[in-house]
């Protein structure tokens, strides 16, 4: 059975005619071609498919599109603004926090949610926030360092950014 679903993703409105049983993960990847959203288990165990819904991390493999209609969905594709990478993206690239890069989109949006709530998190707070996102490459070390670096830069840049344009 199909249904018309209204989604707001990365600031854009979409109307999707799709099967009601498809997960948010499937609709984002297959109907909206947002393949930056990855999957590692499709059972809610690895955190790879995380997206933000109204600023909160949600496992898109366990969410149904109908539950999140007309709410703000953010995927990794929506992190960069006007082609300028988010400070988290820059820090991850600079420090080698993305090795194979497959878990990276889910980790980036989860870290963004953390920094939006807590601009100056302790390392333990970062560990806690990312505890649901598995990474097999990095040993997490460079990920934690990159979140700290991004947080530091965002704290410095935040006041200036308000006056841009």
């Amino acid at each position, binding site marked *: 059975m199909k249904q018309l679903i209204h989604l707001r993703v990365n600031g854009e409105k979409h109307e999707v005619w799709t099967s009601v049983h498809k997960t948010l993960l499937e609709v984002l990847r297959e109907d909206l071609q947002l393949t930056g959203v990855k999957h590692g288990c499709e059972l809610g165990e690895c955190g790879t498919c995380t997206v933000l819904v109204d600023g909160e991390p949600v496992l898109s493999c366990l969410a149904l599109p109908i539950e999140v209609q007309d709410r703000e969905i953010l995927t990794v594709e929506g992190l960069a603004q006007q082609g300028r990478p988010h400070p988290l993206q820059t820090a991850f690239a600079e420090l080698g926090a993305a090795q194979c890069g497959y878990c*990276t989109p889910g980790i980036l949006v989860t870290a963004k949610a953390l920094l939006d709530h807590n601009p100056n998190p302790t390392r333990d707070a970062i560990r806690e926030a990312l505890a649901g996102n598995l990474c097999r490459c990095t040993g997490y070390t460079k990920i934690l360092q990159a979140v700290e670096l991004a947080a530091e830069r965002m704290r410095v840049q935040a006041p200036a950014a308000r006056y841009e344009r």
Partner: protein
Amino acid sequence: MSDNEFAIIGKPLPKVDALGKVTGETKYADDLFLPRMLYAKLLGCHYPHARLKHISAARAEALPGVVAVITGADLPVKYGILPSSQDETGLSGDKGRFVGDPIAAVAAVDEETAERALELIEVEYAPLPAYLSIEEALTKGGEPVHDYGDQGNIHKLVSLEFGDPETGLAQADYVREDAFFYQGNTHLPMEQHAALAQYTADGKLTLWSSTQTPHYVHRALSRTLGLPLSRIRVIATPVGGGFGGKSDPFGHEIAVAKLAMITGRPVKITLTREEVFYAHRGRHPVLMWVKTGVRKDGAITAMHFKTFLDGGAYGSYGVASTYYTGALQTVTYKIPAYKFEGLRLFTNKPPCGPKRGHGTPQPRFALEIQLDKIAEALGLSPVDIRRKFLVDENSYTVNHLRITSCALGECIDKAAAASGFLQKHRKLPFGKGVGLACSSYLTGAGLPIYWNNMPHTSVQIKIDRGGGVTVLCGETDIGQGSDSVLAYTVAEVLGVNVSDIQLVTSDTDLTPIDLGSYSSRVTFMMGNAAIEAAQKLRKLILEATAEKLELPADALTARGNRIYNVDNERQSLSFAEAVQIAEAKHGALGAMGSYTPPKLARPFRGSGVGPSPAYSYSACVAQVDVDPETGEVKVVKVWIAHDCGRAINPLLVQGQTEGSVYMGLGEALMEEQEFRRNQHKIPSMLEYKSPTTLETPEIETIIVERPDPGGPFGAKEAGQGPLLPVPPAVANAVYDAVGVRIDEIPITPDKVLKALGYKAEGKEPRVGPKGVPAFEFPDPIHVEPHPQAPRL
């Protein structure tokens, strides 16, 4: 070395593909969609071991939306990664050998339809006796898993003797025998394996796949599908985690290719996470027995090592894995006499294969714990017993392995100093402890997987008139950064910016062959090939520039996108100008380089496994807190010093080292492939426990650089070696903390509690295997030690 020796090498640059990965732009195999694409699903065998009497696909084929169903009958040709173990088919046709062994595949318009069709395939099984353990495979009667191998369920039997271990043991002041068990575990890459096949009207097949070894997939497809290599193109998509788990050609790759040929439509498959656990090829469970003789000062006089590998249902790399459990014991400390007996058994479980460290973490675990026990018995420090008897540089081992550079001594010193090991060892309060272990690993296998005399890798470079440099190589980036190493290397030699390099990699139609991302071979081999190709072009460009500037060519250098006089930098041309002059003089600018390892194998059977152009070295200290109430082991911090020869990019070396330590900790403390009632107990990421941010401690990486004479800029490997010392360092730390020996991994709380219980009862405070099966190995092949090997 001054900072200015290199423009790019040794600098902590971002990886060339970093921005693609952090923006979500990078396209992994499952991110590819083609028009009219079908989706494939696999039917797995329901029994651990059963003859397939009859399969009927009629009802599945009749389901609307199903386009094709294939079974083993459609893919009868056997293949396997090793020429000696051609025991797999795209889909199993004669029998299923483990629960989940793929026996049929469906292509349908969507995944749901394909899944429903699987349920409609009717299979008549005739169950056979199943072998789920080393013991069962050795002793239980009945039809063996395969009809080839060394006898019954024994896939491979090895017995080698170097020098005179009997005399060595007789001359020892102290001899100990210990048994150890290293549990099997899996790679658990975040990306599920995926492959997309397209068969076009011109009779050409293209396969995009998340593989570490596109060249071997290319060969396997040709063999199993009966298509010439020239009509098959394999493209390795960026791999979302490999660790060895995507190094075999897989049945699902062959099945989607066949389905694409039958249907004339693109067909994609993405394994479910459960199926990834069945595809496996992970760490072999290995039961080990070690007898070592030492003099009072700790010098080893002889070692006798026995290994029993639980291989799972297929050969995979297993013959090599078996040899690897006996090969590298000799490359750290001087061993003048050595005997190795090993066997690999077929069992009805997902096949084991190469996982990071391939066959060597298991014996390293045994060796380093036993050394810790010997040191204690002789009243020696764990540092001294290792430090005083290191192999010499530019020497050979008793089993004929050539050692070039070795900075293990410096690694030990630095790891011990950074961690305060000697101040802490046996001095921390009860419940806290430190452990030391060392290791060594290959920098590329000295021999190819299939016998040939051709290069192991080649690099092609072409330069356009604007100064853009295109580099082509079959190497495959699995996250370790091999694309970046390729770009850095060429950029360094040609004196251009990394951003001026375009890469074309891992595409069998476009790129010269590289054997794949395994055995830590890529940086060393590809790096050397890239330097050779780039130097040819550098020479042409400098010659042409010298003519133009009326200077001798050796007065010039290339750096920062300019060609200039070393003594007068104002006499210069931009790289692009120089390229145009060179093209006018020499014609189109292109060059190739290749690398073939030196011939290191010796005239004895089995000598092909172990030789490497160079060995990396690591020393690791782990500090733990052990809760005697719960048995829980918390790793507080890990210090690791790694001799990588030269860090092409220290950021990437750190990343590989941190990732290796993390993976070693997972193996040491929690990861295991468990089976219950003939099937995988926990084929899910939640129940297969792996460390999260909360369990992974601080890791301090110390890079030790002693350039190796054969390495590109002196580089050796960093991707696998640093895993090896971690599990034994943790086990030794647990002993230091609470005085119990856990001689098997994972070191779980129940084992620690059990051992503490024994200790309280005055029994031997140890959990681990009692011994190994009483198996009579055949008389060993006797090999005289290499003349430059350590002597008794």
